[in-house]
């Protein structure tokens, strides 16, 4: 097999733990990543000749630690800083091979610390996303740039700045405690879900779905769920992503056009992911806490997942879940979704009444789904001329080419029906 591709795979598996372990030692994410990169370069130089070592993770860690010692020696010679000499001694002790297995026990904690660091509030959301994908997802700058359809230099710069910000702010490498934990955890969950959503309904570019990004987010979510297994919302998020991802195959038609949930061929939903999603939701229930926003959204997604046909959906249960969600995190977007469930449970007029109260909502002014949903209710009520205008407005507002085509298609259909 191609050694370079093998090294790439080893990197994908080992780099998060490697960088997390190194950060704990050197207390600086940027330095830790540089050291890890040094080890990667060494692997790329040596493995094609020597072959991939039996324990590539330990090899990379040992190499990175040697680089760390060299580095601290150099800077100690230059600056003679006592604390760095101290660190050098600490590092020397860690190079003892037995320490590698001792480190294993801490690995889960280190990964968790790294997640909290990458999603630290001193960073912008964009920076959190890029840094998380790079350090925890093992993605290259090129891969991240491609996923977000931005120039590689932009992502590279974003990551460099983020590491500098963390270093300058002296962000401690730790798992937050007490009240802080909940706030900081929600930032981590938000970043993972943002990554997922960028893959699930891309906000820009020609493709509507980037499944690789969904898989990256799911992988991060599953890792996090094992690091903080007592946190119900982590399982809620995993459940939500598993169930949403289960529909990937059914959401895109043969020519790449999006297919709305109610029109999807449910037999194409991935039952393995649905089972995993429902199992994650059960874990939330077993923890006994009341459902948070992610668990509620997962429970809503589960209503769809359990229904053999759209008609089988427990719409009234879904309305109740949306009520709970709207209470917990009031937002016009949730109201809009609730209106859709209400329309299914109690008819399009009931849905339209709710949506009409949202039309003047400033935050939805440029949100394409508002006219899209309103158009849907109007067309179901036979008010095709009004529906057509709504679909056209929605088409103008969306940035996604595929979605735009779908909306224009619906507008055309309404035009035909309104004449007939």
């Amino acid at each position, binding site marked *: 097999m191609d050694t370079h591709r*093998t090294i790439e*795979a080893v990197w994908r598996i080992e780099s998060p733990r490697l960088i997390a372990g190194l950060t704990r030692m050197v207390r600086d994410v940027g330095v830790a990543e540089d050291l890890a990169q040094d080890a990667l370069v060494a692997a790329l130089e040596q493995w094609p000749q020597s072959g991939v070592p039996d324990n590539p993770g330990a090899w990379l860690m040992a190499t990175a630690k040697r680089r760390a010692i060299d580095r601290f020696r150099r800077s100690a010679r230059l600056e003679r800083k006592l604390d760095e000499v101290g660190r050098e001694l600490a590092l020397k002790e860690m190079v003892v091979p037995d320490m590698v297995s001792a480190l294993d026990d801490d690995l*889960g904690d280190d990964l968790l610390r790294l997640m909290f660091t990458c999603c630290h509030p001193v960073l912008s959301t964009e920076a959190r996303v890029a840094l998380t994908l790079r350090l925890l997802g093992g993605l290259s700058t090129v891969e991240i740039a491609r996923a977000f359809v931005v120039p590689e230099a932009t992502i590279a710069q974003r990551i460099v700045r983020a590491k500098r910000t963390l270093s300058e702010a002296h962000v401690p490498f730790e798992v937050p405690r007490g009240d802080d934990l909940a706030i900081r955890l929600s930032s981590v969950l938000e970043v993972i879900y943002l990554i997922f959503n960028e893959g699930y309904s891309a906000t820009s570019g020609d493709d509507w779905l980037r499944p690789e990004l969904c898989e990256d987010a799911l*992988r*991060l979510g599953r890792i996090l769920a094992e690091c903080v297994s007592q946190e119900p919302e982590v399982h809620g998020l995993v459940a939500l992503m598993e169930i949403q991802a289960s529909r990937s195959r059914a959401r895109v038609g043969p020519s790449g056009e999006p297919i709305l949930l109610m029109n999807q061929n*449910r*037999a194409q939903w991935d*039952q393995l992911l649905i089972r995993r999603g429902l199992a994650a939701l059960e874990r939330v229930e077993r923890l006994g806490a009341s459902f948070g926003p992610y668990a509620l959204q997962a429970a809503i997604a589960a209503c769809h997942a359990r229904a053999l046909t759209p008609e089988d959906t427990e719409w009234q249960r879904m309305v109740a879940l949306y009520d709970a969600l709207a209470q917990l995190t009031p937002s016009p977007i949730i109201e809009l979704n609730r209106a859709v469930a209400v329309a299914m449970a109690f008819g399009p007029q009931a849905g339209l009444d709710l949506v009409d109260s949202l039309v003047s909502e400033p935050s939805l002014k440029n949100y394409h789904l508002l006219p899209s949903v309103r158009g849907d209710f109007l067309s179901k009520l036979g008010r095709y001329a009004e529906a057509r205008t709504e679909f056209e407005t929605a088409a103008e507002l969306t940035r996604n080419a595929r979605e735009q085509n779908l909306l224009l298609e619906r507008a055309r259909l309404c035009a035909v029906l309104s004449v007939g």
Partner: protein
Amino acid sequence: MRFMMLMIPKGYETAKPGAMPTAEAVAAMMKYNESLHKAGVLLALDGLHPPSMGTRVTFAGGKAKVTDGPFAEAKEVLGGYWMIQVKSKEEAVEWAKRCPGDDCIVEVRQVQEMSDFPDDVKKAAAGFSELQSGKPGRGNA
């Protein structure tokens, strides 16, 4: 991409009915299973009873013939599988290399996706995902 890692333990072809691995072997394997799970790549896994408890239905010239295990001619038999989701075949192989195998083969095979097939095969297999889901599809409702 999804891959199956197929576990083919040496000697399992002649294992007695009810043969079980030792507690130590299971403990080592559990550690491995957990590492897959904690890395977020494990989707599903199962172990299989030995072939001495199984039955083969052999087809020759379209006729079915039933033979109870063990199967004298079998050289390599399945003992179980892991289904993993990874980025590349190389990554699947890297995970397979970490299996605490003593005397066994772990075969890495990619799971077929509908998009892998040419159009005529896709058409012939149109109801396949319906079958996987166990839900009534277009044809068999």
